[in-house]
């Protein structure tokens, strides 16, 4: 027993220290790459692991720590980070820092340097790495060997450790040769232009750090940073790429002020709420109706019906929604052919919304059916019987006794369903893609888009590039919406407990 204990102890020791070391190494790598937050987070994690598993004696934190670290990193931090991204212009072409953006602009502004004559070179293979290099002389008397990533000076044209290729061997490596760019000091760039000579080029853009402006040394045009993270000339020509910039409340103000964003967004917001409320009411009524009908002791086959009714829960949602989308196809789809109708289910705004509701109802009614069945079965029989003795009709006993009791029991679950309905991404995005798209609007909002699907389209499916900043601002809006509903629901639950 003692020995085994020792084994377990040393295993624990080795495990916790290797985790700490791994976390520290990751932290260093992140800090090296200037990912400050992640570096900091892994540093803290390493500290917490060290403290909780090796120093202190309290048990609960040992069990909770791994879950909480992951919860923070992949659930809470993204939410907080949305709050940060929402105040930036993060989007395609605005993802790097200003320093990187300017370096990239300068590097991409190379033009052939007419004052430098083509330079003769020899291709060579380094024996140790088997990589391709070029050997050349610039200026006269100075010898270099280099490729895109390495540049070394050599005393003379003889390069020990390299195997110089003859002409036909050089031709064989033509494609690799074409990719070589030797970066010289002073921004000069040497590239092979044929199998014998290098072409020199140099950037036309020059950055003046003290004035924070880029100057085109040929045309003399001056580019200055604008407030959206981009270098722009006086004439309005922008240089790409731009950089990530804090834009303050602009994403939010543009939601309010920019008519092209505001109009579709209001429609999306309205449909998000209407869709959720309609769905909850419809699916609750449907489920409750079924529960009342099939909670009938003398119906022998009610268990078979129950199993059939919950089949929608047994099919992977993504797939069943895609099948529905096929069935709803206009004219050629099964539904139109089966009922001999010609409804543009997925392309007419009104019918697309109906189709969405039908599919969502199909997805959710089994759950509602099961929970309302449970709630009805939980109503004590005496209450219903007492009401019958008092002469209440079936309808009255339902309305005055069963319904309030069922609603009271199910209130918390309904709030949770409401929060889910507000974010029913799959049912909408996979059925209609949020479409049909509103005409004449910015972005690609559609008649059946809800906030989450619109956000997804803005961030990952944008016609005008992916706008992470605006998408994050919408996420914040969605957080507020879901939070408000949840708080309202919790409040209601509290007051109901009070009534009890």
């Amino acid at each position, binding site marked *: 027993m003692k020995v085994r204990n020792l084994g377990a102890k040393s295993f624990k020791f080795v495990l916790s220290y290797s985790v700490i070391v791994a976390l520290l190494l990751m932290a260093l*790598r*992140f800090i*090296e790459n200037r990912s400050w937050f992640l570096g900091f987070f892994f540093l803290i994690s390493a500290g917490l692991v060290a403290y909780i598993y090796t120093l202190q004696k309290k*048990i*609960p934190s040992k069990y*909770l720590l791994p*879950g909480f670290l992951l*919860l923070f*990193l*992949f*659930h809470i*931090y*993204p*939410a907080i*980070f949305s709050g940060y991204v929402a105040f930036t212009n*993060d989007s395609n072409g605005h993802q790097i820092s200003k320093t990187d953006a300017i370096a990239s602009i300068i590097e991409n502004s190379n033009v052939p340097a007419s004052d430098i004559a083509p330079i003769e070179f020899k291709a060579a293979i380094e024996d140790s790495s088997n990589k391709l290099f070029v050997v050349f002389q610039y200026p006269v008397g100075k010898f270099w060997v280099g490729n895109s990533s390495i540049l070394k000076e050599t005393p003379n044209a003889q390069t020990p450790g390299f195997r110089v290729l003859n002409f036909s061997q050089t031709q064989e490596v033509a494609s690799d040769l074409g990719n070589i760019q030797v970066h010289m000091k002073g921004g000069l760039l040497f590239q092979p232009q044929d199998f014998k000579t290098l072409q020199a080029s140099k950037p036309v853009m020059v950055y003046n750090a003290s004035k924070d402006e880029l100057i085109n040394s040929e045309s003399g045009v001056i580019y200055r940073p604008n407030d959206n993270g981009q270098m722009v000339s006086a004439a309005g020509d922008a240089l790409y790429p731009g950089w990530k910039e804090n834009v303050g409340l602009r994403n939010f103000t543009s939601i309010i002020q920019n008519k092209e964003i505001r109009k579709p967004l209001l429609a999306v917001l309205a449909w998000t709420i209407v869709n959720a409320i309609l769905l909850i009411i419809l699916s609750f009524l449907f489920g409750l109706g*079924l529960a009342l*009908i*099939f909670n*009938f002791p*003398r*119906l022998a086959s009610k268990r078979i019906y*129950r199993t*059939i*009714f919950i*089949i929608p829960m*047994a*099919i*992977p*949602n*993504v797939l069943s929604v895609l*099948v*529905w989308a*096929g069935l709803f*196809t206009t*004219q*050629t789809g*099964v539904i139109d052919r089966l009922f001999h109708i010609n409804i543009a289910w997925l392309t007419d705004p009104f019918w697309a919304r109906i189709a969405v509701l039908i599919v969502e109802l*199909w997805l959710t009614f089994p759950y509602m059916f*099961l*929970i309302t*069945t*449970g709630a009805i079965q*939980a109503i004590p029989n005496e209450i219903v019987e007492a009401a019958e003795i008092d002469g209440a009709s079936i309808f009255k006993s339902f309305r005055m006794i069963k319904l309030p009791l069922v609603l009271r*029991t199910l209130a918390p*679950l309904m709030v949770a369903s409401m929060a889910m309905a507000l974010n029913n*991404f*799959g049912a909408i*995005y996979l059925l209609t893609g949020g479409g049909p798209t509103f005409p004449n609007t910015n972005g690609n909002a559609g008649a059946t888009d809800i906030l*989450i699907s619109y956000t*997804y389209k803005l*961030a990952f499916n944008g016609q005008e590039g992916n706008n*992470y900043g605006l998408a*994050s601002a919408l*996420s914040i809006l*969605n*957080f507020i919406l*879901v*939070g408000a509903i*949840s708080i309202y629901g919790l409040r209601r639950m509290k007051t109901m407990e009070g009534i009890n």
Partner: protein
Amino acid sequence: MKSYTFPDAKRRRYWMKKILWRHIVGIVVGIFAIFPLIWMASAAFDVTGQLSTQQLIPTHHGLSNFTDLFGNKEKPFFTWVRNSLVIAFAAAAMQIIIGAAAAYPLSRQKFKGRKVTLTMILIVQMFPQLLAATTLFLIINTFGKSFPFLGLGHQLPLILIFGGGALGVNTWMLKGFFDTIPSEIDEAATIDGASHFLIFSRIIVPLAAPVFVVTSLLSFIGILNEYLITSVILGLDGRNMTVAVGLQQFIYGQYGKNWGPFAAGALLATIPVFTLFIFLQRFLISGLVSGSAKG
């Protein structure tokens, strides 16, 4: 004789009045419930593979949709299946381990901050991870710059993301079950000198085995069903996708063309989940029916 026919007729009238319409409602709703499933199955075996000519019972049936699906080099169905299984197994295992580990002290130990922790988990649960999909994408992108295997297009970060959602998903449910295991058992074990880890791994976990089966299966199915975060992190690159994302890319916008092979793939992906679900429905129904009454 008459005294016998009378209750018979009465019974029949009762049947007509109280039972018949229930069967009619049941059949209509039943058809609605299985509607997409039967059409999916019928399309899978319809060799014409056309949406526009599809009949409930296909006139020309065969397996050509399946062979088309398997033979498609650009849409590697079996690679998608493998991706889905790897991700769902790993992430479900992670969710269950993390959830159980967190539920244990929350159910068994009295410590400062216990209530706050439980409330916090409940609140976090209200904000699903997918709301922050945009920033998850940006964060994983940053990960990838330092550690390529943790970057976009890789399965590990996706598994970690789902694992990170574990506390919100399973903790309350598992805690509820742990609460029903009498604490006398672990008190006795403590007196016998068992450590907390021994109690957790040798007493609590084995006793809770049934609930682990159900929760891990629900986690597993939930992850198989996930579309948004999966497509964002793995991207829409042929070999990277899961079954859900892959079949969506396969069919989206080309229902006319790919309907048959898509239905074949969807049917294949549905069968295991469907079987598991029907096998487990007793637990699920009793859980939901009695669970709702408790709430």
